[in-house]
């Protein structure tokens, strides 16, 4: 990487916050020169290096093209690309027009294109979308399904770049992050320029960001962690971003370490499962000659943190320079733009050894010695970042003392403006955002225990069991309404796996195999997840509530008991 020049504008922190008014003051856009803005890596292609100058030119070209297509200030523009440079340029091209870009998940190999288009069509119908931007190959097919113009890359053409960006009001909605539901209507989290810059300034203080940092990311840009930490933060701060496709990384996890080694990476955000994936599935010969000694922090975020995952990761990569003090944790959510908490740079997260039984029965986190029979190690998410507060409250909103488990609520200066076109959704109580997460605090450190609802977090993705159950219920041979879906924490994978239990009538093994296959296949095509366990049971197996509904938690306990495990 080129050395930064000391005369440059400083990193945006709380102290320099006044220097930026909107996202369009991003250092990468306002100081165009030959320094690296980003490098895009793929398995089979040579790296593509984009200088700040290239970046600005291309973004301003996209801005002109979008204006030519009728995009105006305040228009919602959906970017439904495969993750590539074009989607990045389009996002910023829309921003400089004062339009509102939103990254939509990518159509993957396994997903049913019909369902994908139906979801997009629903979003378009409810959110008043100006246009959808996608690949040339997909544009004509999609155009027949959605009620707004769809443009492929060819429609953007070659236009003379704009000279100037508009200077929007800092309170104006800058972009949307779609909350990661599996199916159905997604909520667009609307964030203002002010909220985004406040978050970047406070978070940069929390991670002691400097102009010498280099961010390496494989995260998808339609997810808050990828969009904010792995995309907007480096471009606004003018520090290099080394980016790769999540789909390529999943199959070739070693590319993350090659990138760190080649470009001197210092910061990397990962969901917990990725620690296990890297530790278990990178071949030794793929690490030969690599070094990760430049790293400052691997930040675990987006799903429950397993201490075992950190240990596994630190041991596996110790030989290339990873050490436990690089392992950090953040608690984040799209509604707060991104981070609520962060552990301190340079030291491993605090651990809290508590009595698991007491936690379940009394909702208190009682410290016990590590060799206690009910000992459970909890990893701290750190303290709230500057200008943010986080506390646990009871069902009536009263603040709980340390070690009492309740719903976590958050206040900050980087909160969402609202859910886009959904004034009916009001996630606040007394000025505090209700996260739906359950947790406790200990002397300012935040610990997460679980979710208020049955939400499953699989490989960093939020999965609503009812969405998967709806798919299972369409499989012929399954008693409609007699299927239950739940998450099973898995230490080997470092995430929750998806289990399906369904009642069927036909005891014939061949028919049962066909039903199992159908369940796995339908879920793969209709949701973003893969089922790990399918258990077919006879009618009457599933436990129902007094009102006749399938009781998820009770059936999960019954299923685990059948496998000789406890809930």
């Amino acid at each position, binding site marked *: 990487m080129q050395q930064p020049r000391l005369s440059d504008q400083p990193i945006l922190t709380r102290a320099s916050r006044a220097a930026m008014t909107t996202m369009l003051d991003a250092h990468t856009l306002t100081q165009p020169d030959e320094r690296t803005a980003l490098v895009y890596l793929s*398995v*089979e292609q040579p790296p593509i290096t984009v200088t700040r100058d290239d970046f600005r030119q291309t973004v301003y070209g996209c801005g002109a093209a979008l204006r030519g297509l009728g995009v105006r200030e305040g228009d919602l523009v959906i970017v439904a690309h495969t993750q590539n440079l074009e989607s990045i340029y389009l996002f910023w091209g829309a921003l400089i027009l004062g339009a509102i870009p939103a990254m939509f998940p990518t159509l993957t*190999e*396994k997903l049913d294109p019909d369902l994908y288009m139906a979801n997009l069509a629903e979003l378009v119908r409810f959110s008043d979308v100006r246009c959808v931007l996608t690949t040339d190959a997909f544009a004509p097919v999609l155009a027949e399904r959605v009620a707004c113009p769809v443009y492929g890359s060819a429609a953007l053409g070659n236009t003379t770049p704009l000279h100037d960006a508009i200077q929007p009001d800092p309170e104006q909605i800058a972009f949307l992050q779609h909350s990661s539901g599996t199916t159905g209507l997604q909520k667009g989290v609307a964030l203002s320029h002010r909220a985004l810059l406040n978050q970047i300034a406070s978070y940069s203080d929390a991670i002691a960001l400097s102009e010498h940092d280099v961010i390496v990311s494989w995260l998808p840009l339609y997810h808050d962690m990828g969009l904010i930490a792995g995309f907007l933060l480096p471009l606004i701060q003018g520090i290099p971003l080394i980016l790769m496709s999540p*789909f390529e990384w*999943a*199959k*070739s*996890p*070693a*590319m993350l370490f090659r990138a760190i080694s080649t470009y001197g990476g210092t910061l990397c955000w990962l969901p917990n499962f990725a620690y296990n*994936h890297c530790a*278990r*599935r*990178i*071949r030794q*010969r793929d690490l030969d000659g690599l070094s990760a000694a430049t790293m400052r922090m691997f930040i675990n975020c987006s799903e429950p943190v397993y201490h075992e995952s950190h240990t596994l990761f630190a041991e596996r990569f110790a030989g290339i320079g990873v050490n436990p003090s690089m392992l950090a944790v953040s608690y984040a959510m799209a509604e707060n733009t991104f981070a609520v908490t962060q552990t301190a740079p340079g030291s491993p997260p605090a651990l809290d050894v508590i009595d698991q039984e007491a936690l379940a029965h009394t909702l208190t986190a009682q410290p016990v010695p590590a060799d206690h029979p009910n000992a459970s190690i909890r990893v701290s998410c750190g303290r709230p970042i500057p200008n943010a507060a986080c506390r646990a409250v009871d069902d009536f909103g009263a603040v709980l003392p340390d070690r009492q488990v309740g719903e976590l609520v958050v206040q900050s200066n980087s909160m969402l403006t609202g859910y886009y076109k959904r004034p009916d959704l009001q996630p606040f109580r007394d000025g505090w955002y209700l996260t739906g997460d359950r947790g406790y605090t200990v002397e300012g450190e935040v610990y997460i225990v679980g979710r208020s609802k049955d939400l499953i977090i699989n*490989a960093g993705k939020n999965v609503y069991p009812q969405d998967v159950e709806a798919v299972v219920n369409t499989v012929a041979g399954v008693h409609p309404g007699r299927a239950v879906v739940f998450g099973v924490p898995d230490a080997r994978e470092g995430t929750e796996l998806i289990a399906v239990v369904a009642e069927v009538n036909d005891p014939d093994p061949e028919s049962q*195999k066909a039903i*199992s*296959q159908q369940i*796995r*296949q*339908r*879920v*793969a*095509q209709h949701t973003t*997840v*893969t*089922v*790990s*366990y*399918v258990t077919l049971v006879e009618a009457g197996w599933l436990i129902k509530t007094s009102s006749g509904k399938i009781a998820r938690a009770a059936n999960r306990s019954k299923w685990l008991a059948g496998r000789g495990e406890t809930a």
Partner: protein
Amino acid sequence: MGLCRTGAEMNEQEIREKLRRFITKELIRDEKYALADDEGIITNGLMDSFALAELGVYVESEFDVYIPDPDLTVAKMNTLDQMVARVLRGLNV
């Protein structure tokens, strides 16, 4: 682990059965699953693409065949038939 036989000494049928057992036990998590030779393992949702990386690790440790990343794709490794053919190719190089 093959205690006495290396990948080069196994015949196609042995390789196929070892792979089938690994996939049903470790990746599909259902040992009783009767996996067909030409069944689309990823496209039919039996395992996700993360498992391709795990398969790469297994094939190297079990058969001493290194499959480079560009070959660990859904298009190239979706069925047992494809996997067996790729391992055999690695053994014959």
